[in-house]
């Protein structure tokens, strides 16, 4: 442990604020260019902006990679290293987090993307944080619709659950709107196919191989692929495809620099930015003002790439042409002003049943717990 915190504490004007050690438990590798890396960078953001804060990281905590490790064991270690805040960054850890929260009542636990607080009955030292990725998915979907010439969009889905259904559907809503209003096409003609690989990332022999799914999207006529998985196969595959002379685009997911892998085919990436939320939590924990909450955090509409404020973001890609960009900006401003709410009825589920009645607007809960994909989307719902 560095000696720094001690001094910084003395220099610190805000007196009794003692240096904070916090644990960060990742479900995947900390450099997966996606979900886990975003959390990890969120942690770094805290370290850089909170005097004396130090992060203890544990990556790839899942039975497949670490049969010998358990959340409890890891948390024991973190607490023994002085952690007073532990962030578990997957709904895989929901139950276990509740468990350790009860075991360590005076340590604060954050389970990102979990919903115990929303459901109720969670221990009082446990909170949930999630960003409203759906909003960014609207944008990603819109960008896709603006780019497509064949009218076929492929969505590379991970596994099927409420969260992934929610985000795929959001992307579809955005796409349908822009396909109709900016491209002036009949939304019924938009072909939006979701293919689920079976997990958040590629597990050879067990999931579908994302690279192959991407290829088969293009082979079957799609010219835009959106990624919903943790790793960058979509953008990589698209880049390679483009290098073979096809005009194709991709929209990666999860990390702000998602475009870097091959910029010129990239429409932009929707990403999580956990920094602000985690910083807030860390501060409130260290000045012991933290209170339990279920935070579904909003983007900063004024600047979707401002890492110090926005919870989720959209980073325009080099692949966008000028007029695509113009339309997209217009769409974003509509969303920002709230003049446009894509969850306004009539919205039907994939099986044709009505979900949001004409003129109604879906509630947060309805959006969070979306039971199926929406009408007009192709691909399995269950």
């Amino acid at each position, binding site marked *: 442990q560095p000696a720094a915190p001690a001094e910084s504490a003395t220099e610190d004007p805000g007196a009794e604020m003692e240096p904070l050690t916090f644990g960060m438990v990742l479900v995947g590798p900390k450099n997966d260019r996606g979900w886990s890396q975003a959390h990890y960078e969120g942690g770094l953001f805290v370290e850089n902006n909170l005097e004396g804060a130090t992060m203890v990281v544990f990556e790839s905590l899942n039975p497949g990679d670490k049969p010998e490790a358990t959340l409890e064991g890891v948390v024991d270690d973190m607490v023994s*290293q002085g952690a007073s805040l532990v962030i578990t960054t997957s709904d895989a850890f929901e139950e276990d987090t509740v468990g350790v929260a009860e075991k360590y009542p005076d340590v604060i636990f954050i389970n990102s993307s979990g919903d115990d607080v929303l459901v109720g009955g969670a221990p009082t030292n446990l909170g949930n944080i999630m960003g409203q990725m759906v909003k960014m998915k609207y944008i990603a979907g819109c960008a896709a619709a603006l780019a497509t010439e064949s009218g076929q969009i492929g969505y590379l889905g991970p596994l099927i659950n*409420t969260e992934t259904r929610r985000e795929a559907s959001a992307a579809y809503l955005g796409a349908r709107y822009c396909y109709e209003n900016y491209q002036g096409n009949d939304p019924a003609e938009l072909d939006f196919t979701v293919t689920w690989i079976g997990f958040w990332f590629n597990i050879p022999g067990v999931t579908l191989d994302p690279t192959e799914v991407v290829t088969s999207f293009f082979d079957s006529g799609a010219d835009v692929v959106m990624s919903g998985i943790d790793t960058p196969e979509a953008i990589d595959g698209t880049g390679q495809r483009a290098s073979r002379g096809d005009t194709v685009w991709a929209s990666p997911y999860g990390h702000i620099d998602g475009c870097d892998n091959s910029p010129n085919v990239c429409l932009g990436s929707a990403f999580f930015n956990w920094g602000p939320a985690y910083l807030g939590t860390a501060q409130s924990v260290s000045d012991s003002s933290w209170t339990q909450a279920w935070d579904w955090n909003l983007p900063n509409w004024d600047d979707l790439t401002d890492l110090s404020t926005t919870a989720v973001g959209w980073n325009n890609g080099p692949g966008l042409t000028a007029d695509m960009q113009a339309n997209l900006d217009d769409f974003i401003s509509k969303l920002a002003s709230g003049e446009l709410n894509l969850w306004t009825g009539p919205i039907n589920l994939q099986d044709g049943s009505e979900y949001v009645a004409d003129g109604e607007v879906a509630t947060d809960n309805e959006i969070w717990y979306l039971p199926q994909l929406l009408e007009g989307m192709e691909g399995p719902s269950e």
Partner: protein
Amino acid sequence: MRIRTWIVRIWPLVPILAALLFTIGLLVLFGADPVEVFQAMWQGAFGTQDKTLSVVAFTIPLLLSSLGLLLTFTAGLWNIGIEGQIVMGAVAASWVALFMDATSPVLIAVEVILAMLAGALWAGVAGILKTRGGVHEIFGGLALNSLAIIFTNYLISGPWQPPEGGSFFGTVPFREISQLSRFADSRFAPFSLLVAMVALVMVFVALRGTTWGLKLKALGQNPRSAFLLGVSSERETILAMMFCGALAGLAGAVRVLSWYDNLKQNISGGIGYLALLVVMLAAYRTLWVPLIAFFFSAVLNGAITLQLRTQLHSSLGGILTGVMVLFVLLFGSSKALGIGKSSEDEALEPDTSEIES
């Protein structure tokens, strides 16, 4: 001559040390301080009572699988399918734990029995594929491993998914009564240790003191002769596989009933493969297996703390064990290297000097 016999005696340690040196070299390469590393690993394994307990707890499924493998190895079989057999055992146990209503002892009994059955059956499939279909158990096993994991994923994302929707991460936690009672809220269930010890004794006796063990040995050395001497190759092959599968299934049950408390995807995470290494490092000697299983478990658990303390990639544990087995395999027997070769040895060994040189 003195020195030579002396070398021969301490030789077994040489590969182990070599493996350690290799790993240290790797650490230095990545700018880590070996001392700190091994301290951290020691802490992680035996620093606190909880840690020691989880080392023990993790040892048990590993030990059970290794014991099973002793049988298949003796019969000359490479039961790589053990990974899938563990998974199927876990699935069967989970099924009972999730859906059966009974008192705790009954539940546990049924869970254990079904787990063993499931593992045995899954192994039996590989066995039959070999004896009837001529499909080598390595490939049959690999396919069955993936199928088992895919099957789990189907269950936890489909029929067995938690009410709030399948997330592929696991089923709901089992009721307390359907889990093994643990020691001092650790993950170590004394019952499982008991079972493992019984298994150890049984395997030891089976291999040393029974005609069945002898049959397996004959089968492993020369199936054709064994058959003509009255050993029913098919029966014994499948039996060996199924007994191994049963123990693996048991290991799977221990995984879900005491290590975890629900069925997760890829519940085994390579314990089966690890067990193969254990048995190889033990040079197929029954009594060494428990020690080495424990050692492996300690190394891997130590690697957790290692990662937390030093942020080093936790595959280090795997590398250390892997290199160790490789070196022992290659340089383990001083005879193969021509060191301390006694004259009888030479008489028994077919002469190939003209080709060797």
